[in-house]
């Protein structure tokens, strides 16, 4: 996070708001408020489109009626049992990945930092592929295999990186080593399995939201309710730690503890997301960067990253369902294309205007 130079103006353009006693105070920045509002509106619009479109199209008033529990049986079935849970999974998983990505990037002080670097994604994917190809497990077992694989790998990486405390740099490098080993194990399994099984494993590894229901929504929602508040509360401390561990320590931040807690919470959040939807690529990486650029903020913004992640995933799901209809793409393929293109466009625009 070192290379973005703070732009003058972005820092001071805020209005402080205080309660009368002065105990609670925060800055209101017009740009932040506007961008947040726009993101929420965009998410709502795509969400509505997800409920309306499909093989069986439903108009907006009928969707509203179905949500209120009225209307035809078919409408009720499609809106409440099929499309609504899937759309919620997209929002929640996207937000989880966005926040987790922001935390990882902040901790590693590297815009390429993502759950991959501590081996979590690789471990989860390997756990799932093992469950699919070797044990032939069910959907639930695959999810459990993924979480077990992810947690085990992240723990292993953390232990191997430990030596007089954990240094960010060593953590990254050990993570890379372990991930490389796991990738080769997966490649081996996929080349040796028969085509149908290999393909099932591959689709899971790309990440998909097909046939996700209320069980998945509740699972992710519970995880988020537990993990998100402490992470959001840690935001200011994470921003201080981006200035360097020693500076943060001097400013009174308990560095080791913050690091451990943030890593744990972000890993658990990633685990929940992966268990439900597979390792969807690029959201954890792109959402924090896009949010930063949109908000013109100088540090990590967890809330912005959450909104951006949710927007990216619902949009991707809309495209995945309808771009090549009736063929259903796995959403991971689309997140990569959309998120990547958007980042390309942002960079291109900055290139045109000559800004950093």
């Amino acid at each position, binding site marked *: 996070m070192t*290379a*973005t130079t703070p732009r003058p103006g972005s820092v001071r353009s805020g209005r402080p708001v205080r309660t009368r006693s002065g105990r609670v105070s925060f800055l209101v920045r017009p740009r932040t408020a506007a961008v947040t509002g726009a993101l929420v509106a965009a998410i709502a619009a795509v969400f509505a489109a997800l409920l309306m479109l499909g093989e069986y199209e439903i108009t907006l008033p009928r969707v509203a009626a179905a949500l209120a529990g009225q209307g035809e049986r078919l409408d009720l079935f499609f809106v409440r049992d099929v499309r609504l849970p899937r759309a919620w999974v997209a929002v929640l998983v996207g937000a989880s990945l966005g926040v987790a990505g922001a935390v990882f990037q902040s901790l590693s002080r*590297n*815009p*390429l930092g993502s759950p991959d670097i501590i081996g979590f994604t690789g471990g989860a994917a390997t756990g799932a592929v093992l469950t699919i190809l070797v044990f032939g497990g069910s959907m639930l077992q695959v999810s459990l295999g993924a979480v077990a694989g992810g947690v085990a790998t992240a723990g292993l990486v953390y232990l*191997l*990186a430990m*030596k007089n405390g954990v240094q960010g*740099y*060593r953590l*990254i*490098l*050990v993570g*890379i*080593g*372990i991930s*490389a*080993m796991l*990738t*080769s*194990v997966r*490649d*081996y399994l*996929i*080349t040796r399995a028969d*085509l149908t099984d*290999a*393909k099932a494993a*591959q689709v899971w590894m*790309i990440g998909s939201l097909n046939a996700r229901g209320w069980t998945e929504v509740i699972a992710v929602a519970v995880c988020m309710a537990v993990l998100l508040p402490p992470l959001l509360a840690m935001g200011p401390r994470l921003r201080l730690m981006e200035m360097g561990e020693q500076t943060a320590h001097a400013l009174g931040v308990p560095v080791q503890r913050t690091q451990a807690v943030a890593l744990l919470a972000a890993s658990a959040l990633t685990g929940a997301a992966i268990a439900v939807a597979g390792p969807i*690529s*690029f959201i954890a*990486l*792109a959402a924090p*960067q896009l949010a930063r650029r949109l908000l013109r903020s100088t540090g990590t913004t967890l809330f912005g990253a959450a909104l951006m992640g949710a927007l990216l995933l619902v949009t991707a799901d809309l495209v995945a369902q309808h771009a*090549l209809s009736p*063929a259903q*793409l*796995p959403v*991971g*393929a*689309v*997140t*990569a*294309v*959309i*998120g*990547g*293109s958007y*980042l*390309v466009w942002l*960079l*291109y625009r*900055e*290139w*045109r*205007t*000559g*800004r*950093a």
Partner: protein
Amino acid sequence: MSAQTAAPERRSPDRDEATQALAKRTRAGAKVHTARALGLLVAIGVLLLCVGLSVSVGAKSIPLGTVWEALVSNDGSYDHSVVVELRIPRAVLGVFVGAALGLSGALMQGLTRNPLAEPGILGVNSGAAAAVVVAIFVFGLTSPGAYVWFAFVGAAVAALAVYALGSRGRSQATPVRLALAGTAVAAVLQGLVYAVIVLDDFVFDRIRFWQVGSLVGRDLELFSRIWPFLVTGVVIALLLAPALNTVALGDDLAAALGAHINRTRLLAAVAIVLMCGAATATAGPIWFVGLTVPHVARAITGPDQRWLLPYSAVLAAVLLTAADTLGRVVLPTGELEVGIITALVGAPVFIALVRRKRMAQI
């Protein structure tokens, strides 16, 4: 007059000390250089040993004496033709692919000043993969020899796109922008590959074997097509070493010292495209080598690119040939692809090194 000549004499003890200190440092410097040169020679020796093993070990093991006979007086026997037509081309390919990957990894990390930078970041692997998918999906090609040009062009186009996007307006490519541009382009291409392999089983069946990274079935003809690119890239990379040392000081300081930053960056990018494109076209995407070998080399040599680059090249070649040889004997039947072995063997060594030493920062 006398006062003027007296003045330096009064300071002469200091000057003597300074001269001595300088001489001592020069001697120490020379010692370090000798040690590094010796280390490089040892590494090259190990590489030759690996190549020898690679030629003699396999489904049918051939003693080194027979290998030598095949080279000096080939009588057309089965063993001799195996050595000349299969084993030696494969060993040579392994050396070149390894060296190219190690060098381009070191160049990338020096250029972007990012320890996570690797050839894949420049979009090379995804570009090649996307082009190979096109080759299979659209043109129905099925052999590595037929993919080569697609892979090479894909890698080059992706890398150029990343570089253009990563360099800002009239100014130069900044490290973080380059890395971000690379990830963005790679993601788009990877997504397209995913979409195609999900929709088409035939393509998936081909690409799952290509994307492992392997030297199986690559012959001399393939090498004869690809070597000019590899050699040009290697030469450019090695010549760039002093300039890269200057660039590592930071843009402002380097510019003040009269370095041509943009020219250096552009040449380095050209070298990376040539080497990675050729390596990936030959062997498929091999992820681990370019990323980690430079870290190992840096732990031995420190940040001086003049030593770092040759060490990276030789060590990566050792890793690749050794892994390729090991892959032939490790399974009771068949063989394990080199891309799998490099990671399985290289990663524990890499992790041990990371733990033992305080890794040299870039």
